[in-house]
């Protein structure tokens, strides 16, 4: 399939380029525009980004493969990135991975047959105080997970209801 940017995408890429003195700097944001449009940045998409920015394909490929959040292959509709790093490990992050593995019948790193979910084990997401937690498709964080909370999330996602911003109140900003 031939990938093309929409007019809006191209306009966005132009405005991104204006932020930097050098077009190369637009590589990361342009890859984001592409991933938001196509859901991944497979080699064909990387070529499109290179062509659009008039940069070598090898450069764009090098960047796309350096950063973990760019999907170099197609993923499920929802990507569940479960943090298992330090604080999440201490608070049961691996139990959450195992629970989701059992629920979905896949292992971490795999996608369900219906293409609905990809499960990934990821490094620290910077939500250490709200462990264990996961991120849904590079967007919202779901914090303080329990098996019940995970089940609820999976049911909602199956219905296409995406999680909303889970604001964490400041516990005792002033400690007395």
């Amino acid at each position, binding site marked *: 399939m031939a990938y093309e940017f929409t007019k809006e995408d191209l306009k966005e890429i132009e405005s991104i380029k204006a*932020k*930097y*003195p*050098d077009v*190369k*700097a*637009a*590589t*990361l*944001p342009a*890859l*984001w525009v592409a991933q938001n449009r196509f859901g991944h940045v497979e080699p064909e998409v990387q070529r499109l980004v290179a062509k659009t920015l008039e940069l070598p394909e090898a*450069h764009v490929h*090098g*960047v796309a493969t*350096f*950063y*973990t*959040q*760019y999907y170099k292959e197609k993923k499920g509709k929802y990507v569940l990135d479960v943090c*298992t*790093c*330090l*604080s999440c*490990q*201490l*608070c049961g992050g691996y139990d959450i991975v195992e629970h989701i593995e059992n629920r979905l019948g896949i292992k971490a790193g795999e996608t369900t047959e219906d293409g609905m979910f990809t499960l990934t084990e990821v*490094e*620290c*997401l*910077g*939500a*250490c*105080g*709200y*462990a264990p937690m996961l*991120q849904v498709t*590079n*967007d*919202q*964080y779901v914090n303080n997970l329990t098996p019940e909370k995970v089940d609820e999330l999976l049911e909602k996602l199956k219905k296409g209801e995406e999680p909303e*911003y889970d*604001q*964490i109140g*400041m*516990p*005792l*900003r*002033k*400690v*007395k």
Partner: protein
Amino acid sequence: MSSVDWKNYKPTLIPDIDGLEKIDVYEKNGGYKAFKSVLTENDKWPDEKSVIDEVKAANIRGRGGAGFNAGLKWSFMPPADGKPRYLACNGDESEPGTFKDRKIFEYNPHVFIEGALIAAYAMQVTTIYVYIRGEYLVYVKMMEKAIQDAYDKGYIGKNILGSDYSVDFYVHMGAGAYICGEETSMLESLEGKRGYPRVKPPFPAQKGLWGRPTTINNIETLAHVPSVINNGADWFSSIGAENHPGPFLYGISGHVNRPGVYELPSGVPVLDLIHEVAGGMRNDKKLKAVIPGGSSTPVVRADQLEGITMDSDSLRSVGTMVGTAGMVIMDEDTDMVDMLWRIAHFYHHESCGQCTPCREGTGWLEKVLLKIKNGEGEVKDLDLLLDVTTQMEGRTICALADAAAWPVRHTINRFRDEFEARCKKSVHAVA
């Protein structure tokens, strides 16, 4: 040493004010007063240098982990020559245990924007970039809005507040790479490349973004600047610990009842932070160990913590560091072997692969620790691990190798009995 009066401390970075993320509310609470002052009150701030001197005197030690005096860093910028100069604000925040800067993005973005603007003015910077890790998409959007609001109010842009100073301010979103929190790697990433750290010298102040003078500061570091300008260097340096003054955003996670981010003076006793601030240990378990400032800072055993406070001098006395003040609290049930293996896995995953000692070393640390974790290791493997750490430290372009080596060395040294207990009995044992 007199103890720090943290119970009566009033937060300045994330005070309890509803809607402070909105620019109007921020202004109503004294926001942008400091920036206006440095731009327009010539009797108070005759030149840019006077601003740098004040910040230098306050001794804001970098909150990203290195603890370097921010004003001193600013003073390394060469004189302005009319060509582009940059301020790169580091919001990559990826060190395990660290989750503080996001609170500024969320609750008080303008205090950071104002601090960055003052820094930019003091160094005559022409463009500010704030690098935010890609996973913080929510905060990227919040910051974009906050910056736009500041543009609309005339705090950013051309001839700010009628002065002859102009600056632009952009958000640059990362895409998942811990290494991009390393300052020169961040510059590479901003320039649109793989995040490979650069060899220093030249230092960024000489050759940074696109070969031009650049200063890199952590988000929290910059957020302290407005209050220093408003209240003076003496006010700031009188808060908390003498050699590491000012407020800290303590991120407390792990086995405590009330994990979270707390703004308190530096130098609060570690045990107060655990037992009072964070509500004590979960399930009334006993404290076993604390990692004081992100996963790279050496772990401290509970029996070493009596009287230890969160500042560089006190923590040095137990062989560790303040780092990012992202404290990870571990209870008596924590398996130190598993914990250390997970840290080693992290650094192996995040090594950029540029330098051999780090690329290979982090891999071997993880591999050998996995073997021990699985009960397949031998006691001599512990010495092998310690040997590998000495082959890594100080032998690479950036500090990731050190960050990977320290926890391994210190966790093994401080909990050696636990590691030995997991090893197979040596077939060559003679006693």
